[in-house]
């Protein structure tokens, strides 16, 4: 269908063109003046860290969100969709990360749901199966269209979802993290189908956190960071290292104070271990790893999203139960049955999911602050009101929590202040080891600096800290040692002299065996 178009040696006209797209939510600019082009017959990867605006861009394209500014054209005509259904009618189909099909229906019914061939007004089952079989064969898939969807593994369901998406003669196919639950062979099968569709002229927009897969399948990529476009490149012309640095970016903040403090603490970091983990791991979560954290030391965990950095932290806290290895705290073996065991041993953990796993939104600052301490005390021994008030007053002042009203509901606070309440919740329990997962994500720069400064100060006072952040600058600035994670395993441990470049090289590093042999 696109033979004529392909003959032109010059760059073909884009199928989709978005110009100056801005999307705003109350208080947040999710996308700012982003340009985006998608050509027929290409696989285009949309790259960026969490919160960079990938999903927002997809939703702006498919009509889920209405952009505050900007123009979208499809095939040269200006379009503005009221929702995914309208976008699909215009030829833009989306397959989401979770399979959005009906598991109790057959494969054929799922593929043609809502557009089944009819006969005398009723659904024609035989024609439905025949049409579905045709479509599947067309994609080179051998799936019985009469079988029930739920009988198939997720990978096949994903392919059925794609078959459904292209069954409407889609010109644009959007695949949002299609590979996250697939194994290697299944990914290969998916990629075969993607190439097949691409060669037929379908424009494919592909989102994935797996760099290797992106390099294997994509022809071109667009990189977003913090809601802004940072570049559009041919995949063959952009090295992995450049991509990672585009995605993560460099922030030149005036954080000299933090650095000075971190430096001081570094000199004083002891060699007395607080926690030692040997061979700790969990199947499907993190490969077994060794880790030692000393008193007064900040250990940074660096890695891309999905690299296993959060999973590792959760294992250390017993939020997920490790299924191998031993942990000792202060030389004593610790059986990580659950968070209570970890807390009793002096470990504290702030989850990256502040709303879902951190604050208790409908309780006051006071109640949130003393929650962990109260839980450790047990229900029968309430903390006396006087002690409570003293603690709350002290920590509100120490961390500059606003509003400074102990009765304010935590759900009404800004992200930065919620994070401070969470920190205070753990600090009142006087932990030996504090695990912070993305403590500075989504909060304003002022609070960010305050929290980093606090971490440096705590380490100076002898607390051991595990610090996770997507912002490598932050990790490097604060940490005495950096553990690098990749593909759900610990791949390296760097000392204090590590630079952002070192870490990026490790993250972007490929298993370049042929080259290694050559060298």
């Amino acid at each position, binding site marked *: 269908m696109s033979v004529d178009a392909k003959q032109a040696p010059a760059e073909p006209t884009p199928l989709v063109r978005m110009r100056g797209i801005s999307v705003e939510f109350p208080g947040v600019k999710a996308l700012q003046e982003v340009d985006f082009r998608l050509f027929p017959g290409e696989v285009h990867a949309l790259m960026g860290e969490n919160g960079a605006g990938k999903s927002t861009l997809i939703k702006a394209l498919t009509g889920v969100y209405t952009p505050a500014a900007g123009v979208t054209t499809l095939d040269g005509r200006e379009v503005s969709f009221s929702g995914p259904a309208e976008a699909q009618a215009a030829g833009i189909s989306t397959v989401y990360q979770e399979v959005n099909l009906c598991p109790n229906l057959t494969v054929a019914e799922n593929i043609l749901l809502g557009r089944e061939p009819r006969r005398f007004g009723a659904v024609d089952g035989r024609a439905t199966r025949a049409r579905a079989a045709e479509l599947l064969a067309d994609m080179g898939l051998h799936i019985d269209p009469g079988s029930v969807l739920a009988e198939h593994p997720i990978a096949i369901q994903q392919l059925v979802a794609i078959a459904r998406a292209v069954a409407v003669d889609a010109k644009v196919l959007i695949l949002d993290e299609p590979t996250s639950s697939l194994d290697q062979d299944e990914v290969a099968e998916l990629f075969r189908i993607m190439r097949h569709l691409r060669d037929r002229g379908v424009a494919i927009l592909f989102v994935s956190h797996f760099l290797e897969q992106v390099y294997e399948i994509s022809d071109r990529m667009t990189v977003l960071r913090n809601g802004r476009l940072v570049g559009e490149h041919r995949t063959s012309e952009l090295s992995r290292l450049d991509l990672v640095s585009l995605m993560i970016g460099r922030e030149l903040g005036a954080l000299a104070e933090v650095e000075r403090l971190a430096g001081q603490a570094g000199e004083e970091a002891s060699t007395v271990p607080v926690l030692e983990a040997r061979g700790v791991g969990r199947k499907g979560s993190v490969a077994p790893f060794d880790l030692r954290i000393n008193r007064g030391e900040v250990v940074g965990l660096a890695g891309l999203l999905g690299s296993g950095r959060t999973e590792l932290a959760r294992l250390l*806290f017993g*939020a997920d139960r490790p299924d191998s290895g031993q942990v000792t705290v202060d030389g004593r073996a610790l059986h990580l049955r*659950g*968070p*209570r065991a970890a*807390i009793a041993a002096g470990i504290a*953990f702030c*989850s990256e999911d502040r709303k*879902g*796993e*951190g*604050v*208790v*939104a*409908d*309780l006051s600052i006071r*109640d949130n602050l003393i*929650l*962990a301490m*109260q*839980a*450790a*005390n*047990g*229900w*029968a*021994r*309430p*903390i006396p009101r006087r002690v409570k008030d003293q603690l709350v007053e002290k920590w509100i002042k120490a961390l500059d929590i606003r509003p400074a*009203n102990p*009765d304010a509901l935590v759900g009404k606070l800004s992200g930065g202040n919620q994070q401070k309440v969470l920190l205070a*919740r753990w600090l009142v329990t006087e932990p030996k080891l504090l695990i912070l997962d993305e403590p500075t994500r989504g909060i304003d720069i002022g609070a960010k600096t305050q929290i980093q400064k606090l971490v440096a100060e705590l380490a100076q006072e002898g607390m051991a800290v595990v610090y996770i952040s997507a912002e490598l600058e932050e990790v490097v600035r604060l940490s005495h040692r950096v553990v690098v994670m990749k593909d759900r395993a610990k791949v390296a441990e760097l000392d204090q002299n590590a630079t952002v470049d070192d870490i990026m090289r490790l993250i972007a590093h490929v298993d370049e065996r042929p080259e290694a042999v050559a060298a």
Partner: protein
Amino acid sequence: MTSTRPLDRFRASGLLWPLVALLVLLAANAVVRPSFLALRIQDGHLYGSLVDILKNGAPTMLIALGMCLVIATRGIDLSVGAVVAISGAVTCSYIAGAGDPTGAGAAFAGMGIALALCAVLGLWNGFLVAVVGIQPIIATLVLMTAGRGIAMLITDGQIITVRNPAYRTVGAGFLLLPVSILIAVAVFALVALVTRRTALGLLIESVGINPEASRLAGLRARTIRWTVYVFAAICAGVAGLMISSNVSAADANNAGLWIEMDAILAVVIGGTSLAGGRYSLTGTMLGALIIQTLTTTVYSMGIAPEITLVFKAVVVIAVCLLQAPKARAVLLRRTRRRHTPPDPDAEAAGRPSTHTPTSAMVEKVAQP
């Protein structure tokens, strides 16, 4: 920043509107039938419509108290009605089969066995919800359906009648006031004391608002959820004793039929959200009283049985709307526009502790 003015604090507690609704209902009854408020003492017993409301409402109050804690943890317990039937069936069967069916010993043993069984049933519910992880509405539906069958098996499908003075005291006895209401108030006081004087209430609310955050903060979320189901089942068991003792019989089919709905309604009317979290025991008691008063009103006003349930529904909707700040704001705006000119000063003076848009505006105007 908490206002020290009692009226403001009361208004903030969310009890104002249920209380208003209750008083309006009582007043309506008194207008229609002046003898409604009359109380008289006869043979050391207090009699009157108000006393009847308390006495008949006691089982609902008890069950609603248990339900309130369950709902606070984001759960719900549909099986309480069936537990009521089982509790009565077990006690009456035991008493009827005992060596001395009129003795106090038989009554106490029977009640003890019944309540122990109810605790086991609560353990079962809690196990399904907290350990297996089944959604509470489904998990307790199991016992709601099976429970009446179990009660029928115990009674052999018959209505078992007993003549046991000691047993009769629980549901029909008087110590000036009906014994049943004394029990309900005692349980209320006990629960209020245990949950509000210790940290249990805070922990229950925390689990209800955000279970995962609570677990990660070191709360025994599972144990807490489990415990509230056991407590709810025991409350239902005691209510079952009251109901069966009041008529000296165990009716497996009809004892406590639909009482779970009344209990859930009482909790909601009392200002506790079905989404879990913050709960109000006092509100729940008020809610149960409203429902019982409503039932009594329907009978005493001679409202036709065909429209009884519709009438009940209308009142319940009205109370729920009154509680919703949004609905109240709409209503108030309507009436104010119609009746009185806007008076921002009065508004600002009335609620000094909160920043309503009006008071904020006044402050801005006041500053040059």
